[in-house]
């Protein structure tokens, strides 16, 4: 999870300057090496994923010999009440925690970007911490906390925890966006007689919308993907999809797991495409 902070890294990319390519010939050998390594790396990354998707259509129950094409595992996934319930839980948690994380992360980014105040440095450090603390530590510390304050584990604890780990990522994304924000537009609105609320509603919020949408997509994906933290704060009836999958994998392979995994892969691909499209439109 910590890993996903890189969206922040990807936020704004500088435009590429045309550069001379006179060394292409000189380094043809090293270029060949680079191409080879890159192709092998992409193969390494993609072969397992593709193979898994292919085998989710295999009618053989065990083993990796191809029998015949079937959709029965997908049919089973969609008729399995526990899987559907886990998927619904995942969605509920992701939607609620995205909303919470985006609201509080954006507000905090506004305070931190626009004002100077005492203790600001400490908050800055604290906001980076969840990126560096290993997930497993965050998971067990939340487990201990919920046990200590006697909150029984379920959807509530999942949402609380997901907001806690998504919020810093929203904050980092929004802060980068706010740094580029042209405040003279706000001042202009106020000079023209808009009060603060109207200015926020009609000027600030619409201008921040692209950033808010990207950080919401980020938080949504983080929440949907999380396994380790969810594993420790989930209750009996509130398993999320990754927690359910984990339980099934540990029991042994079933072809249904391949089908769910393939579906989750497709969902990730769709989310990536949406994010890319939004970013491209913003740049245009």
């Amino acid at each position: 999870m910590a890993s996903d902070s890189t969206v922040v890294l990807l936020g704004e990319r500088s435009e590429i300057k045309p550069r001379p390519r006179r060394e292409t010939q000189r380094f043809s050998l090293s270029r060949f090496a680079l191409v080879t390594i890159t192709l092998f790396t992409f193969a390494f990354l993609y072969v397992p994923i593709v193979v898994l998707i292919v085998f989710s259509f295999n009618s053989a129950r065990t083993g990796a010999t191809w029998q015949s094409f079937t959709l029965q595992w997908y049919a089973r996934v969609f008729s399995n009440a526990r899987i559907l319930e886990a998927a619904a839980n995942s969605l509920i948690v992701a939607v609620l925690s995205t909303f919470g994380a985006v609201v509080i992360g954006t507000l905090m980014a506004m305070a931190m970007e626009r004002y100077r105040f005492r203790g600001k440095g400490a908050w800055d450090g604290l906001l980076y911490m969840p990126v560096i603390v290993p997930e497993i530590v965050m998971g067990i510390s939340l487990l201990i906390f919920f046990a200590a304050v006697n909150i029984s584990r379920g959807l509530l604890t999942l949402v609380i925890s997901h907001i806690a780990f998504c919020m810093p990522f929203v904050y980092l994304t929004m802060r980068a966006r706010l740094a580029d924000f042209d405040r003279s537009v706000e001042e202009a609105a106020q000079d023209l007689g808009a009060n603060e609320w109207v200015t926020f509603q009609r000027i600030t919020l619409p201008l921040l919308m692209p950033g808010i949408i990207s950080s919401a997509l980020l938080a949504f994906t983080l929440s949907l993907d999380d396994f380790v933290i969810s594993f420790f704060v989930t209750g009996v009836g509130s398993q999320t999809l990754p927690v359910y999958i984990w339980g099934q994998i540990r029991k042994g392979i079933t072809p249904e797991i391949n089908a769910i995994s393939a579906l989750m892969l497709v969902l990730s691909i769709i989310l990536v495409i949406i994010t890319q499209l939004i970013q491209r439109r913003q740049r245009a």
Partner: protein
Amino acid sequence: MIQAFRERRSLRIAGLMFPGAFWLIVFFLIPLLIMAVISFMSRDQFGFPAPPFTLENYWDIVKDIRFNLSISFEGGLNIRLFDGLYLELFWRSIWLSLISTIITLLIAFPVALFMSRLSRRYRNLALFLVMIPFWTNFLVRTYALQFMLRGNGPINTLLRALGLEPLDLLFTPTAVMIGLVYGNLPFMILPLYTSLEKFDWTMIEAANDLGANMLRAFQRVMLPLIAPGLVAGSILTFVPAIGSYITVELMGGGRTNMIGYAIAQQFSASVNWPFGSAMSLLMMIIVTIAAVLYFRSGRGEQRAVL
């Protein structure tokens, strides 16, 4: 008037900060503090944390320490510094995470370099191809890798069909290493690429014109400028590696133990929260030290990146 303005200003700051600050303190900082307190506790007869306060959990980690430097090539290069169950575990986790970070870096750097030199169209395609595994559920990806390497999985089926000896890779330290590299590659490639893409190659030429050879130009010109991506990528790889749970279970079958996995066990199988908390705290200290050292070594500019 000024007084009123100041009051309104600080009220606004407080209003904006409060929800986030509340969440961060109550659901992040306080849980960590409680965990720290529990790490100094004993257990009651039901196994739950209870006073009296003690240093025993920490003592259990270090008590059987014996320095014993040994180098072997079992499961790759394997340097042991300590004997003793838990210190050895810590050391092995740091070592495996470090090696996996280095391997990931060695693979990711040429890939990111190549990507940054592609024409715009192909670069966007390559970026898209890295983004997909980057955003795909880590558990699902590790599962896919495990599926490949299984005893009767696709690779071995293929090998048998070709009349070759099947591999017995799964549930070995090597499998854990492959899993760590596989899982973390996208997280190394992307930040490296972001840095490399901004890099102005005419600077290398300038360095060459001024008499620097390739190595020196790389060291003095390129390295400082891509340091932010290098630092971000390494932290994003090292931290999940040392705390890894999914990979240790799915690729190592729990047999190649690492700290993250051992901690999780203290909270599930053998209910020993105080001991698990002590290990967590130690791991956090190690990670923080590693991160701080690494940030320092990158000299400054990293803030912009991570």
